[in-house]
């Protein structure tokens, strides 16, 4: 604990001109013990220090009136008026009082809110770019596979789009923030993580479970907060280029600018390209989606009076991806000759925070994004346009033990597509949704070790009415190294199937929405314990474990099993549960060896009419680990990382489907070597998927009937069921939903990083 020593000396000399002097001496003690090294001061000219038995002596002090001050580390200061008389030795024996709580004295009252992250009742996990470098990935989205309890999920076997699941909750339940500024979009976990080079990222904070009321009614799954580097820390220029033996090439460029003394800017470009047609599983379909993607990111910070915040970030993204029949090219786009899924996406975002120039801390938050998608899944086209605008004003106020945060917000969503979903009476009728809201939150310090956060939010959805979102979090800090947290809250999600649920975007099945979907509601609770242990030799161990539970009402579930040609979306008439346990262990040895291991066990199921059914494509167990070591003598780093997944229940097309109904246990493992010996350069190389696992193993095929993707030779019975015929022995249709893991075997990679300070 902080112990503080305090010395403060002030002497006012009031004496006149006197030529005669005397000596001053004495003893300084406290509770019967001598105080050593105490400072005794008379005027600025006369100083002394007590010796090992607490005695001091100052000689040749001119006669007169003085202020004497005695100060010593850990004691309260003493000030006294004294008079020195001619030829009289002055003896002063003083008793000092111990100061147990000097900390209070140095706290300078500030108007800014002094909440430190670790003090927050909500558990926060922090990952630095070093962590994500262990297995180089093209973007932060893929990199998150290294984090326990966080899983980038591929939702589409041919088009390879995905979102991020935190503790089993879908992407839209997770908010993505950049430097604490939210990208308000349910697509933020799909696109919000691209374009920011690792070299500009200071760290990534992950909150699992319901966060502050600040982030709206959806943020029940968690937060991913990307903290960018300060202008001082960011390199002037950085580049990171890598390619794999499949020629997946990724280029990251980062830069910073200073505009006089007015502003600083960070600039990042990410380009990813993969243009090889590889068909290792011999189904005449591409194993991995081919793509070209460019993202441009900028962040501006303006220097203002009193260090008030004004930050703006913007990002633009263009992506062109396709997968399908190996003979496909753009001339077949949308046609019925050769099957291909082709998606063009354009997206732009602008968001930021502006602190108002007022005495009170008022913050204006703004966020807007436009998203345009032009897709063809075989002959099915899906063209959609989404625009979101968001404004929020918050007020921070700290009084006594209360730390209040309140605000008003408004969100506008425009959505239009070429499907009947946005058509009414034969004419196009785009959706316009307003979502005004108000919230208040109080973080109450009950005692030094106990903190309670209570939040309440009310939103009005112009389509669905009132939404109430309560939040509660409690933190018990047993001591610096043992912390328990509990947080709970409700979530509310209006699902837009087409843009947000990418499983719907497989052209092989028709999407059917049964009736008007009601918004999904959920209640979530997390119990979290953090323990830090330190050995005197420098080894440290961090243990973090949580228990999580979410119950959904009106759960919107796509039914794959009723009809192999359809995904039928409906509100679940019952409830769904997602619950589990997760634990993460982090060992850092003083010799530089670092080991991280995590495991999550979870159970995700729905209950309808008392029948419990397990959610498809969701595993019960996942494990992640990484081991890194740097041999300083030869400037070589070594990283070994991996994941293991338990079996998942998979969507089959019928009784005769020869594919395995469950995925096997499987593991993806990677090794990497990094050489730091060059000036400004780092070279790295390694192997991905060491065990050469692909989901094709143990299965005759992954995508069914790739030889007949337009279902021309499928014969149907009188009830619409698919008949087994000599040409179609298993009675299947074309279907791409079976993919449960990346369809890429072992491959090597090589990369170079350049940094100019």
């Amino acid at each position, binding site marked *: 604990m902080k112990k*503080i020593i305090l010395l403060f000396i002030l002497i006012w000399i009031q004496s006149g001109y006197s030529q005669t002097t005397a000596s001053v001496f004495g003893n300084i003690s406290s509770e019967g013990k001598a105080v050593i090294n105490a400072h005794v001061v008379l005027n600025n000219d006369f100083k002394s220090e007590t010796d090992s038995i607490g005695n001091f002596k100052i000689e040749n002090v001119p006669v007169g009136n003085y202020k004497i001050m005695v100060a010593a580390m850990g004691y309260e200061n003493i000030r006294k008026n004294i008079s020195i008389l001619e030829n009289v030795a002055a003896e002063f024996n003083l008793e000092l009082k111990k100061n147990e709580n000097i900390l209070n004295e*140095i706290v300078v009252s500030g108007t800014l809110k002094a909440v430190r992250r670790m003090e927050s009742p909500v558990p926060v996990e922090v990952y630095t770019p070093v962590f994500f470098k262990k297995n180089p990935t093209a973007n932060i989205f893929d990199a998150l596979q290294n984090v326990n309890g966080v899983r980038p999920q591929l939702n589409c076997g041919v088009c390879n789009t995905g979102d991020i699941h935190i503790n089993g909750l879908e992407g839209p339940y997770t908010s993505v923030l950049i430097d604490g500024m939210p990208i308000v979009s349910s697509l933020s976990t799909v696109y919000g993580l691209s374009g920011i080079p690792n070299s500009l990222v200071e760290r990534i904070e992950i909150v699992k479970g319901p966060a502050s009321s600040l982030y709206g009614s959806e943020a029940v799954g968690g937060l991913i907060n990307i903290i960018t580097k300060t202008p001082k820390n960011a390199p002037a220029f950085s580049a990171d280029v890598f390619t794999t033996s499949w020629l997946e090439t990724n280029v990251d460029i980062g830069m910073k600018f200073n505009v006089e003394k007015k502003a600083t800017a960070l600039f990042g470009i990410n380009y990813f390209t993969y243009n090889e047609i590889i068909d290792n599983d011999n189904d005449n379909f591409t194993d991995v989606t081919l793509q070209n993607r460019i993202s441009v990111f900028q962040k501006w910070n303006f220097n203002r009076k009193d260090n008030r915040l004004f930050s703006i970030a913007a990002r633009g993204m263009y992506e062109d991806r396709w997968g399908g029949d190996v003979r496909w090219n753009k001339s077949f786009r949308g046609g019925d000759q050769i099957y291909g899924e082709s998606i063009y996406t354009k997206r732009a975002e602008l968001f930021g925070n502006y602190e108002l120039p007022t005495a009170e801390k008022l913050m204006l938050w703004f966020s807007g994004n436009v998203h345009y998608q032009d897709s063809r899944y075989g002959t099915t086209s899906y063209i959609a346009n989404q625009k979101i605008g968001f404004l929020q004003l918050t007020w921070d106020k700290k009084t006594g033990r209360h730390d209040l945060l309140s605000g008003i917000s408004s969100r506008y969503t425009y959505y239009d597509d070429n499907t009947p979903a946005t058509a009414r009476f034969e004419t196009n009728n785009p959706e316009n949704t307003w979502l005004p809201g108000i919230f208040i939150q109080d973080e109450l310090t009950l005692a030094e070790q106990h903190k309670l956060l209570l939040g309440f939010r009310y939103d009005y959805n112009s389509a669905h009415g009132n939404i109430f979102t309560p939040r509660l979090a409690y933190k018990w800090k047993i001591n610096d190294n043992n912390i328990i947290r509990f947080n709970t809250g409700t979530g509310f999600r209006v699902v837009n199937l087409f843009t947000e649920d990418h499983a719907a975007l497989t052209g092989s099945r028709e999407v059917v929405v049964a009736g008007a979907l009601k918004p999904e509601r959920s209640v979530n609770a997390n119990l979290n314990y953090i323990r830090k242990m330190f050995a005197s030799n420098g080894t*440290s161990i961090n243990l973090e474990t949580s228990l999580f539970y979410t119950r959904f009402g009106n759960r919107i579930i796509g039914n794959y099993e009723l009809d192999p040609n359809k995904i039928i979306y409906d509100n679940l008439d019952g409830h769904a549960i997602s619950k589990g346990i997760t634990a993460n262990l982090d060992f*850092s040895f*003083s010799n530089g060896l670092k080991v991280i291991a995590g495991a999550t066990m979870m159970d995700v199921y729905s209950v309808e009419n008392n029948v419990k059914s397990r959610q498809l494509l969701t595993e019960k167990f996942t494990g992640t680990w990484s081991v890194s070591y740097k041999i300083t003598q030869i400037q070589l780093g070594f990283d070994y990382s991996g994941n293991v997944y338990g079996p998942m229940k998979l969507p089959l097309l019928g009784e005769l489907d020869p594919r395995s109904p469950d995925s096997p246990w499987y593991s993806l493992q990677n090794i990497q070597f990094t050489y730091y010996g060059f000036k400004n350069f780092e070279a790295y190389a390694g192997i991905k998927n060491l065990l050469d696992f692909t989901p094709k193993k143990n299965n005759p095929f992954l995508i069914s009937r790739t030889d007949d993707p337009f279902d021309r030779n499928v014969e149907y019975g009188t009830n619409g069921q698919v008949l087994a015929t000599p040409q179609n022995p298993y009675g299947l249709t074309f279907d791409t939903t079976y993919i449960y893991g990346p369809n890429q075997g072992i491959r090597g990679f090589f990369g170079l990083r350049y940094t100019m300070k």
Partner: protein
Amino acid sequence: MEKAVVNTWFLALAFAFLNVGNSYGQLKTIGFEQLDSLQTVQKRPVLLFFHADWCTFCQSMKNTTFKNIPLSEKLNNHFYIISFNAEQQENVVYKGKTFKFKPNGNRTGTHEIVDLFATAATTYPLIVILNRENEIIFEYSNYLNAAEMLKILEKLE
């Protein structure tokens, strides 16, 4: 099976509680506000330790290096020690000037006073040693164990 896992989890939690140790460092630290007046009374070199809440190696140093008895005795007797959270939001007054937290996003940023002592890019833990005249004579951004730090202190003397 599930129940068993949950029970084990709670059991482990209870066990962890029993192990909760309460150890406090012996290091006597001061604030920037006190440095000037202390230096007028007795000139000493200064050890600055900049850390951040999210920096695990900083926490580790606090709990290992700075709890080392020979090192903390040496520091307590011959140095002024300032341990500073580089992301704290309270103002700091030093040499008559007020230093503030400088945000670069909502609730993220660095305190201005760090820039005064960190000449290069700041990574944490950051250890800066000033001589008796408040001049920077040593700057290092990495984990240091007690033996290494003692060696450095000896060399600087």
